[in-house]
């Protein structure tokens, strides 16, 4: 199905805003979304399915006497369904309670343009092309080692566009593409089965490296076959991007969200200017990062994306704001309002959370570890205490490093501690920057983490 054009989407949004105002809204904001995704799926070593999803919708946010109502519909081809959603948003606002901290929707501001986020070639991909991509990946895994069994994965291409308009004159349109492939594999030897080892590559333009994904998933799975117990002690860890993404999403990223700070839900309350991490750590939130997976011109309420310094050489410099949290403090939004398509109201979220790379190559970082572990996959990070930062997770598995080399893996190894202590103990950061969801990060070397062996 052809995609909706910029003018058509903006027209839908602006029309809905005008209609809401005419129906009695004090303020109105309309968000129009279109997503088209094609994918092929791998199950148990072969390509078995192909999916295509077309999802469009409109989300309407209105204020009436400082009370907020929201409604959505996915029936945007029908003017009467849109009018119905507007009426529902208004009735929800009227049923709700006024919020004295509500200081209005965002004002109109110039946006920079997002770079390297759209590739026409992705739009033209057919299921057959994705079958080829997935096959390259499967073949690479199969050729790497006979003991490898790919259990699931696939290749997908997506187009996402959104238009936003509000009663302050904000009007924006942005579109982007993503192509990705992923493979989860195990290795089997006799009755021995490894944990699931996973690799993926996601890009905004048409250049994923499917062969590398297949090879790397296979390498990790095979290297997990040789297991040995390790003892309970405090040790050095290399945290790869997978582990960092899991650990930081539920702790550090929550702690720098201004709404959590304002509600006393962050360990960083009152800590601007304070040292919260080792001086090796510098972090930006960068909504304009070239080709970033969360890069776009503006956020979920039309505020311009920007690059915000969060942590500078270990010192906390800034928090992430949406329009509401910013106005509560008389500040400007940092462009961190995120939406789950048209289905939700905006909420504070990081864009591309970028931990700046250091000068050490990854291999060098590893070679300097005399005795420690390297951690890829974690289980249970979502059960961390989001406020205190305490975590108690299991590595599936942990790989033992001795004299700079991986010697075996170990199952059921638990890591316990506090993420904010971990950040203070970062002794080196590698140079291998990598995009992973909202995280852009290299490997980190951390000292003195409690490890419970089995």
């Amino acid at each position, binding site marked *: 199905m052809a995609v909706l054009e910029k003018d058509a989407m903006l027209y839908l949004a602006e029309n809905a805003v005008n209609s809401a105002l005419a129906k009695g809204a004090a303020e109105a904001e309309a968000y129009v979304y279109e997503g088209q995704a094609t994918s092929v799926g791998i199950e148990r070593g*072969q*390509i*078995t*399915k*192909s*999916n*295509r999803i*077309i*999802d*469009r*919708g409109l989300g309407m946010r209105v204020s009436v006497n400082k*009370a*907020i*109502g*929201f*409604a959505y*519909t*996915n*029936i945007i081809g029908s003017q009467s369904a849109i009018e*119905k959603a507007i009426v529902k*948003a208004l*009735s*929800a606002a009227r049923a*709700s*309670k006024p*919020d004295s*901290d509500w200081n209005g929707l965002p004002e109109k501001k110039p946006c920079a343009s997002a770079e390297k986020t759209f590739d026409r070639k992705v739009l033209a991909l057919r*299921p057959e092309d994705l*079958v080829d991509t997935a096959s390259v990946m499967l073949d690479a895994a199969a050729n790497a080692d006979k003991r490898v069994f790919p*259990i699931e994965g696939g290749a997908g291409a997506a187009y996402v566009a959104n238009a936003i308009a509000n009663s302050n004159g904000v009007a924006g349109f942005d579109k982007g593409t993503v192509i990705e492939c992923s493979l989860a594999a*195990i290795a*089997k030897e006799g009755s021995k*089965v*490894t*944990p*699931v080892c996973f690799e993926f590559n996601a890009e905004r333009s048409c250049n994923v490296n499917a062969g590398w994904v297949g090879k790397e998933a296979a390498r990790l799975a095979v290297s997990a076959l040789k297991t040995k117990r390790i003892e*309970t002690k405090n040790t050095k860890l290399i945290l790869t991007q997978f582990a960092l993404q899991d650990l930081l999403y539920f702790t550090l990223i929550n702690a720098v969200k201004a709404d959590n700070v304002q*509600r*006393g*839900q962050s360990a960083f309350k009152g800590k601007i200017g304070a040292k919260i991490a080792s001086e090796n750590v510098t972090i930006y939130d960068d909504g304009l990062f070239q080709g970033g997976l969360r890069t776009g011109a503006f956020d979920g309420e039309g505020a311009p994306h920007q690059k915000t310094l969060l942590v500078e050489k270990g010192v906390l410099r800034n928090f992430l704001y949406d329009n509401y949290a910013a106005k509560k403090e008389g500040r400007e939004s940092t462009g961190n309002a995120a939406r789950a398509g048209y289905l939700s*109201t905006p909420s504070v979220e990081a864009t591309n959370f970028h931990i700046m790379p250091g000068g050490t190559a990854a291999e060098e970082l590893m070679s300097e570890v005399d005795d420690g572990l390297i951690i890829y996959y974690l*289980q*249970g990070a979502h*059960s961390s*205490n989001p*406020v*205190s930062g*305490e975590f*108690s*997770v*299991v590595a*599936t598995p942990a790989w033992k490093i001795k004299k700079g080399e991986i010697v075996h893996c170990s*199952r*059921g190894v638990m*890591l*316990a*501690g*506090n993420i904010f202590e971990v950040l203070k103990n970062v002794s080196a950061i590698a140079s291998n920057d990598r995009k992973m969801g909202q995280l852009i990060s290299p490997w980190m070397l951390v000292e003195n983490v*409690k490890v*419970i062996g089995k």
Partner: protein
Amino acid sequence: MAVQKFGAEYAEVRAQSLSKTMLTLKEGRVEAAKQGIEDGVALRVLVNGAWGFASVGSLDAVILTSAVSDACKMAKAASSRLKTPIKLAETKTVEDRVHVKPKKNPSEIRMEDKIKTALSVNKAILGFDKRVKSCTIDYLDLTGTSYFVNSEGTCIEQDKLYVWSRVTASAVSKGVFTFSREEIGSTAGYEVFDIETPELIGAKVAKRAVEQLAAKSPKGGTFPVVLGPNVVGVFVHEAFGHLAEADLALSGGVLSSNLGKKIASDVVTFYDDGTISGAFGSFKYDDEGVPAQKTLLINDGVVTGLMHNRETAQKFNAEPTGNARAEDFRVEPIIRMRNTFMAPRDHSLEELVEGIRAGYYFKSFRGGQANIDGTFQVGIQEAYEIVNGEIGGPIRNASISGNTLETLFKVDAAGKDFELWPGRCGKGQTAFICDGGPHIRLKEVTVGGSA
């Protein structure tokens, strides 16, 4: 018609019309009152042994026709390198209409009253103790109808009704932050709040957050433990349930080679049951039109069955169990749990605790996860020491981990009590589920702690 033109072996259509109400309150502030309408159709076809799936957010005939041809073309493309074609187990065709009859239909409750209920929860939490500093209340209700038709003649109209709420609170004192969470969920109706009253649930969440302020960190290591029904539920779901999903078993999971074998102690009997009236994981027909049933997974320690869809049932030469579920029309049905639990036995809590000289009582979980090799982790939000056979002071931020096949043999006694808890499970899509059981004792398990 288009299906015949493309030579599909099988085709199914799932059309849905859904309405949602959502609320988020933070410290009594209504962030936004939200309502939504969504219509959509999911088409799934089997061509040359491969699946093609198309989802469109529309009930328009022209769009649907093009989606059918899309799905068939997709399946054809996917089949190009297929070695083992997909086949489906046979099922009886069904013609049925299933209507829910709630005492209180959430779609007929006014938004004002839903906000009032949430505000009562908020008041019960923030009024509990001065050290409780914040609370977030999320509320969702979903109502609507799902129509399922397939090329074999099955034709089902089925109402959907879900009421769900998550309540979280945090307490702060002397630099210590604690966090507490409860969920409620029902397929019966809004009357769930008459049992789980706002006052009750608010007090429960607030009390835990306050109690945790005085809690110590646990010692890491191997200990005997007693698990409460809430933790047993997530243990059954994570440590065993996912491995008993036939798709994961086929993918090299540890259960495929253990069918009919003893993998647990004699006191272990597990079920996955889609037929419990009003429970959050119940429904009459799954999203392949197969009736839900009560499935025995482990009987007295022996693996007796797996959870199937039509595709895996054919592979295992078993009956489909009615576990194929799709979150909505945007996604395809996959094997999901329903209400998964351990059957009770004969011990009292006192009897379970009395023999333990130094261990832990884990009462309520914060989250859990599992891996195909049998590694599981369950994070705990409410726990106590066990000292010389008695439950002692609170501990915080503990978690347990182990390997399923080792740990199930270490269940040495089970209680005579029973509780079922609602929850949500993620496997690419979200499913509403329940899990539970009695209190149980584990001879030993690895406890993750930082002390």
